[in-house]
């Protein structure tokens, strides 16, 4: 069969294949180079995987669809810098699968919300935003305080993330590599074999939802929100440093 205009037009299967090829070229040219251009991810200290509790909080963030109204990417513009702080780095979401950048901002960007407000504020605000911000249009999430946190599958969740490149450890060797890279305290938390215990310990370490006697979904979500954008100490870098990666 000759590959003429007519033969493509009357042959749906062939047309689908050729359309896919044509569209893929655009995608491949844009996406593939990011994997081998050496400047894509900035070399920066402090970025680490999420702890088991933060990771469960992140799962709840995604489950509740927070990303439909909140982005986690501060763009390099003056107004965003003045409102939210330093623009987000690619390195800061290198352990995010999937990343939560987004572009839909019905609510504010959350890229640097970590430690901006108190734990108590987050708990009140998630429970009923209008308790603290009368003009808010965010929905209530009262079940976060009611629901016990289910972390029975946390080890499996970490294993899944390990497959896509997050350096959680299972073997002694991987653990030691984490000690080297992140220090003992963090490496302990990234150990899949101790995930349950790490999660409980972190939940007890701070008054996340105002009640230490229970481990709720609120505990996990607040722990996650409080770490957002706090891993990199920007005072250590000259402002021109990050521009060198572009």
């Amino acid at each position, binding site marked *: 069969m000759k590959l003429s205009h007519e033969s493509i037009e009357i042959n749906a299967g062939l047309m689908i294949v050729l359309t896919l090829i044509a569209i893929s070229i655009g995608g491949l040219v844009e996406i593939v180079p990011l994997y081998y251009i050496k400047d894509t991810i900035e070399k920066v200290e402090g970025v680490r995987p999420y702890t088991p509790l933060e990771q469960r909080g992140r799962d709840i963030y995604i489950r509740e669809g927070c990303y439909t109204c909140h982005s986690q990417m501060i763009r390099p513009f003056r107004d965003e810098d003045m409102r939210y702080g330093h*623009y987000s780095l690619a390195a800061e979401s290198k352990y995010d699968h999937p990343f939560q950048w987004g572009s839909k901002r019905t609510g504010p960007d959350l890229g640097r919300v970590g430690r901006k407000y108190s734990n108590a504020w987050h708990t009140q605000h998630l429970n009923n935003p209008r308790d603290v911000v009368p003009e808010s249009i965010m929905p209530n999430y009262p079940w976060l305080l009611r629901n016990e946190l289910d972390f029975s599958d946390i080890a499996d969740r970490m294993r899944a993330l390990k497959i896509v490149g997050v350096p959680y450890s299972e073997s002694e060797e991987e653990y030691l590599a984490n000690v080297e890279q992140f220090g003992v305290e963090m490496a302990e938390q990234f150990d899949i074999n101790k995930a349950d215990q790490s999660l409980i310990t972190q939940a007890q370490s701070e008054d996340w939802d105002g009640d230490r006697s229970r481990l709720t979904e609120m505990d996990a979500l607040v722990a996650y929100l409080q770490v957002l954008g706090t891993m990199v100490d920007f005072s250590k870098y000259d402002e021109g440093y990050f*521009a060198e990666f572009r």
Partner: protein
Amino acid sequence: MVEQNRGKAVQTTGHAWDGDLQEFNNPLPRWWLWSFYATVIFAIIYWVWYPAWPIASSFTKGIGTVTYQSGGKEVTTHWNTRGELIEEMQRGSETLKQQAYLEKVAAASYDEIANDPEMSAFTQSMAKVLFADNCAACHGIGGTPAKIGQYPNLRDDAWLWGGEIVQIQHTIEAGRTGFMPAFGSVLGEDKIEQLANYVLSLSGHEVDATKADAGRAIFQGTEGGCHYCHTPSGKGLASQGAANLTDAIWTVADVPGASDDKARIQAVEAVIANGVQRQMPAWQGRLNDTEIKLLTAYVHSLGS
């Protein structure tokens, strides 16, 4: 079935379906075609000017440049948004206009700012935006929080941690941790009720005099030890963030919102029984010194 188009014979694609269903092969409208060529030319100029094509582990940088100060020297590099931001934050026209005021405010004392109409107008307008971005989530737009019982109202002249400029500045810089122990299991219901009566009597509420007397002993003695932080007069130590119990302003117990004497007593009892744990985050690091100065002047002006 072939129709005439603008009076001329038109070609068809030559394909026929269902025997007689054919498709015109009209030339594209000229305006559309030239617009298309224009986008092609635009793309080529774009490739030359901006970073565009990936090559091995790098990419074409384009001939556009951006220049900014970094580490004390001038850097000129290929065009990129991060460099553009640095340049704008250093030399943008809006930045420079703002910079002139910011430098003036940074060098001035709080008194000078308050007495200079231009500086104080700038402080009010810029701090209002900073306040909305950073402080209003708790303290409310304009400094009035959503409810009594959560975060201090900044529009009155009652200050838990002190209302002097230096105290306000320290509060913003380092944050505050407010703590009152929970007395629920320590004192038990009866004594807490007595204490609540005494506490309400301090601000002139009608209370049960016998219970209030018993409450006074707990408050001023070692059993409750309330006077350590709230002081024997009940006015409170600013160094502990202890509330003044003698005025009509309530920051934790919603006494003004209570409907009757009984509800007022209950509101105070709940605070004594459960204690208070409140935290204001530290802003040093997130905000720079001049921004904190602007906010300090603004918050101070709200309260006076």
